[in-house]
């Protein structure tokens, strides 16, 4: 005999959570039917189990606990904890920001590499660039997109791989093109500054979203701009295109390398230099994207998303003000 139970569920922070919970619970033998209602935060199941409703809640929770969801018979009042998370997240985020800017200020990263630029030196420059102020734009964008994707998607590995592949391939190809035709694509200051400002605005939006400014009305996330983001996130081409786009983002190191590729005079040498540079920046960016994914699937997810949001907002503001200064719209506010 089938009986229907309704449980309250907590931890459903995204649209994909519905699919994940239904997948896991639907895979249990004693569950005949499962229906998640995100709006009301309930899970309705049909079962032939003879266990009591409390036992069922406990049993089913044990299946989805590792993903951060909990089922309960009574509706748990949103824990006062969730309010405290933001107070933990802000200092954590600010600590990272302070360390990052201190690192820039210290001048450790300003060592010179003399002589001819070879693929080996451009690899080292890539390593340096990936922790330099370029991280404010490229890294901030990667972090915000990764965290957002992890929040929405169950399977984010493919998206990240596509992004990194897109980045490596486009750096190699565009580097080759630079070496071959020797004309100045991607080295238009105004264009890169505008792209930087667009990237910083995306970071600010995603950062605010991660911090949870709109957390109280999850459903409204489906409308408007987030619907647009959600749509483009799921296309195979999008991460490839974003990876491609990072070639043109404002970063002094990238542009220096573009000039080197430009003056190298051949497709092969241009390719090698830009590919080696992108390869040098890879470890840090991979760490950012896959690191955020592994945090996102742990039980510290809410804290991680909020801390990442604080970091992203800080970097976004920095990149935005720097971009405006670069365009000559405002006078430079800082000199790192």
């Amino acid at each position, binding site marked *: 005999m089938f009986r229907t139970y309704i449980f309250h569920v907590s931890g459903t922070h995204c649209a994909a959570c519905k699919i994940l919970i239904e997948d896991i619970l639907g895979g249990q033998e004693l569950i005949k039917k499962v229906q998640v209602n995100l709006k009301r935060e309930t899970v309705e199941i049909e079962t032939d189990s003879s266990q009591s409703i409390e036992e069922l809640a406990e049993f089913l929770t044990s299946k989805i606990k590792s993903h951060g969801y909990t089922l309960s018979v009574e509706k748990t009042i949103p824990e006062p904890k969730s309010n405290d998370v933001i*107070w933990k997240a802000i200092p954590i985020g600010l*600590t990272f920001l302070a360390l990052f800017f201190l690192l820039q200020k210290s001048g450790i990263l300003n060592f010179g590499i*003399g002589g001819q630029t070879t693929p080996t030196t451009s690899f080292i420059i890539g390593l*340096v660039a990936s922790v330099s102020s370029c991280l404010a734009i490229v890294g901030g964008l990667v972090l915000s997109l990764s965290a957002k994707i992890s929040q929405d998607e169950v399977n984010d590995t493919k998206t990240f791989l596509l992004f990194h592949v897109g980045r490596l391939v486009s750096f190699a190809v565009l580097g080759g093109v630079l070496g071959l035709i020797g004309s100045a694509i991607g080295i238009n*200051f105004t264009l890169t500054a505008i792209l930087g400002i667009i990237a910083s605005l995306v970071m600010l939006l995603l950062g605010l979203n991660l911090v949870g400014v709109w957390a109280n009305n999850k459903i409204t996330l489906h409308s408007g701009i987030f619907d647009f983001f959600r749509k483009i996130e799921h296309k195979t081409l999008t991460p490839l295109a974003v990876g491609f786009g990072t070639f043109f983002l404002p970063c002094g190191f990238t*542009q220096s390398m573009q000039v080197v590729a430009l003056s190298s005079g051949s497709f092969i040498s241009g390719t090698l230099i830009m590919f080696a540079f992108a390869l040098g920046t890879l470890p840090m960016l991979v760490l950012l994207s896959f690191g955020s994914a592994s945090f996102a699937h742990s039980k510290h997810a809410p804290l991680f998303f909020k801390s990442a949001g604080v970091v992203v907002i*800080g970097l976004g503001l920095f990149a935005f003000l720097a971009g405006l200064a*670069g*365009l000559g719209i405002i006078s*430079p506010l800082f000199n790192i």
Partner: protein
Amino acid sequence: MHKIALMIITLGLVLSIGIIFFGGSILGNNRVVSEPVQNSEIRDGVQYITINAKGGYSPKVSVAKAGIPTKLIIKTNGTYDCSAALVIRSVGFQKILPQTGETEIDLGVPKVGVPVQGICGMGMYNFQIEFQS
């Protein structure tokens, strides 16, 4: 109590980031005022101002004479960071400097009280040259 402690930490961090951003430049400016850096020289009636570009520009603030033809020399030495992508809007200069070398930029005949400002393409570093009579 827990929350209050975290709020205090937050405030402290905001302050320290503020010092990282603005404290340095305030101290830096004072230093320039107290011991002006001699980075300009006049040869054959042309004033040459030299600024090093690497991990920022130094000196950040220079003082030079107005009313004579002036050229700015930017020295790079293994410079790969943002400071290699230099923009000086007042004279319409924007170029990625060679990694190592000297770049000469014609500033025309500067007027008193009209400073020339250079900024790197991504807006992270800048320098300023003030002209006095």
